[in-house]
């Protein structure tokens, strides 16, 4: 079996003591930062990214994905214990998880969340391992026209799944594409939008954009809040769920895994969409839908399984096509590029050790999460109760030094400060920053594929419609846009996001 020999190569890498250690550090640090109220995976990853610069690429990626799962799981812990979800995907967990905690069953909710996550993580690891090589094989036959159309689909899907206004999300993608074009143009060598700055000629560093938009902007918005007292945390008495809990949770976790795995691959999909859909599904199939919102175990197990499965399968388009499907994957892709790995179909064949090592480390990381989180939950609770006035100077310190370490220069600190202000303005204007990050990362690729496709077609723009694969993808993009414009679908979309207030 090809799959098993590949997984074997992977485990040989991911089970090396050094890599196990990095995975462990990633999971621990990721959870520790992720449990802090208000810090989602995007802020956590961009803050901790500099810690991985000195590692070799395989170890760095293993540690980063550990940070990602850790941050996601940490977010669920906070959602359950204090009803302060740090990110969209744990909003759903907070609905029933926090109700369970109110009823004195915080321990059971945490354990169910952890077990559902590891269950989903294990299954979706195999899914990723089986599906990625197929997709990579298809992608190898893609020319520039196909790539351009594929990226258009990805951006359109990201726009549709962004919260709030569609037009504003399109605007944010466009702003991201513009920011991505700052610097020397690859083809002509012309300086664009540099305004005489030497540092800007190599382009804007994506860590500056991410840290500014997600970490600094958040601090500006929250620091003056007069109500930010330490949250009230529920005592955890019994950790192990009851038999009845297991009986209710197991099928929900299984359904969540399947749904999450599928939604994770779609462009624009990811953890948040998966957990919302899983919650809706559980409510629909349940014989007692009235229990939802009042501490239903299925309402924790389903979404937690789904968001973990989707978090893993969303690696598939990023690793095999080089197209990140959401903001977090855009960040992971940026991290890969810092380590001089260009994600795309060639990664599987050219760097099998890295590819399979990363995939198997997803499984290893999930097991570690459970082994670690249930015993350590007392420490996480202490972290949640740290007052914000101690927290934000620490976040600033990590970010400032991290920004310096990218190029060993302070210019990145200044650009991030600017993006912090800009990000705060976007927050006030209720513009979601994730589509901007996606546009920023995809911008240069979108432009160069467009140029190459037009060059090959001798300036004939119909090439995007006459090449069948490209035409199909553009049709998909058009179809996606139509679903939003048509009234009945539009209502559905607003319903889904209405729960995420």
């Amino acid at each position: 079996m090809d799959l098993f020999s590949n997984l074997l190569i992977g485990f040989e890498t991911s089970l090396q003591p050094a890599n196990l250690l990095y995975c462990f550090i990633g999971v621990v640090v990721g959870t520790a930062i992720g449990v802090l109220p208000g810090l989602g995976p995007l802020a956590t990853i961009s803050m901790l990214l500099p810690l991985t610069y000195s590692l070799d690429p395989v170890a760095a990626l293993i540690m980063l994905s550990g940070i990602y799962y850790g941050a996601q799981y940490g977010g669920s812990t906070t959602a359950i214990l204090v009803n302060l979800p740090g990110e969209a995907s744990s909003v759903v967990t907070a609905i029933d998880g926090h109700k369970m905690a109110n009823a004195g069953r915080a321990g059971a909710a945490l354990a169910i969340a952890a077990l559902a996550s590891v269950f989903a993580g294990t299954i979706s690891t195999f899914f990723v391992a089986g599906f990625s090589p197929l997709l990579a094989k298809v992608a190898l036959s893609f020319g520039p026209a196909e790539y351009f159309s594929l990226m258009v689909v990805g951006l359109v899907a990201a726009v549709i799944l962004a919260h709030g206004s569609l037009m504003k999300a399109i605007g944010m993608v466009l702003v991201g594409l513009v920011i991505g074009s700052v610097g020397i143009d690859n083809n002509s060598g012309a300086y664009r939008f540099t305004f005489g700055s030497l540092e800007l000629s190599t382009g804007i560093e994506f860590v500056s954009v991410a840290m500014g938009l997600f970490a600094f902007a958040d601090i500006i918005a929250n620091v003056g809040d007069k109500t930010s007292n330490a949250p009230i945390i529920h005592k955890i008495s019994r950790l192990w769920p009851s038999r009845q809990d297991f009986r209710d949770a197991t099928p929900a976790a299984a359904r969540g895994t399947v749904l999450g795995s599928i939604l994770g691959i779609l462009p624009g999909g990811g953890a948040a969409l998966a957990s919302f859909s899983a919650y809706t599904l559980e409510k629909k199939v349940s014989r007692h839908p009235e229990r939802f919102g009042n501490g239903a175990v299925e309402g924790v197990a389903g979404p937690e399984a789904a968001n973990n499965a989707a978090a893993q399968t969303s690696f598939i388009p990023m690793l095999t096509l080089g197209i990140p499907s959401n903001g977090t994957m855009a960040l992971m892709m940026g991290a890969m590029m810092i380590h001089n790995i260009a994600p795309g179909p060639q990664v599987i064949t050219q760097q099998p050790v890295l590819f399979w090592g990363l995939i198997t480390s997803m499984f290893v990381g999930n097991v570690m999460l459970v082994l670690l989180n249930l015993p350590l939950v007392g420490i996480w609770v202490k972290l949640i109760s740290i007052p914000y006035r101690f927290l934000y100077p620490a976040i600033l310190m990590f970010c400032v030094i991290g920004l310096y370490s990218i190029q060993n220069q302070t210019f990145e600190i200044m650009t991030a400060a600017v993006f912090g202000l800009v990000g705060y303005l976007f927050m006030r204007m209720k513009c979601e920053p994730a589509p901007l990050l996606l546009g920023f990362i995809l911008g240069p690729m979108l432009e160069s594929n467009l140029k190459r496709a037009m060059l090959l077609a001798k300036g004939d723009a119909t090439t995007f419609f006459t090449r069948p694969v490209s035409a199909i993808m553009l049709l998909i993009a058009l179809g996606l846009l139509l679903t939003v414009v048509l009234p009945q679908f539009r209502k559905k979309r607003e319903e889904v996001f209405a729960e995420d207030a």
Partner: protein
Amino acid sequence: MNEKFYRTPDGQSGIFFTLFGAFVTWQSLGYPLGKLSQMGPGMFPLGLGSLLVIVGLIVTFNAIRSSQEEAEPFEWRSAVIITVAIIASGLLLLTAGLFVSIPVLVLISSLAGRKNRIASVILSAIGLTLMAWLIFLVGLDMRIPLFWN
């Protein structure tokens, strides 16, 4: 018809997209456009800029028709203090050293909080400086001067 649309989140974002798009369009006209078969450096940004203007006008137009509530008040105090703190520590990092830059960052940014006591601010400045030194210089072997020369 909402006469104060420029005070709503949608109105403001519409105006922002329009102006930013106009700026991008104007700038990219200064770069060679090339032909469709050989696109110059100006072509792609020109497309983006013009699309942004269109999107911005649509968003603004919708904001004028809708009755959205006004945006929250701008937190000038927090925005200025946090930005100044970051820029100051960036300027000081290589010139005055880590042991000056991090305390400055913590001290300035603490002005933005509402309930900070001096003793606890000084304590966290010392604590975070030591933490930065241990993690990044001792642990990760980064090259940052400790003090000015």
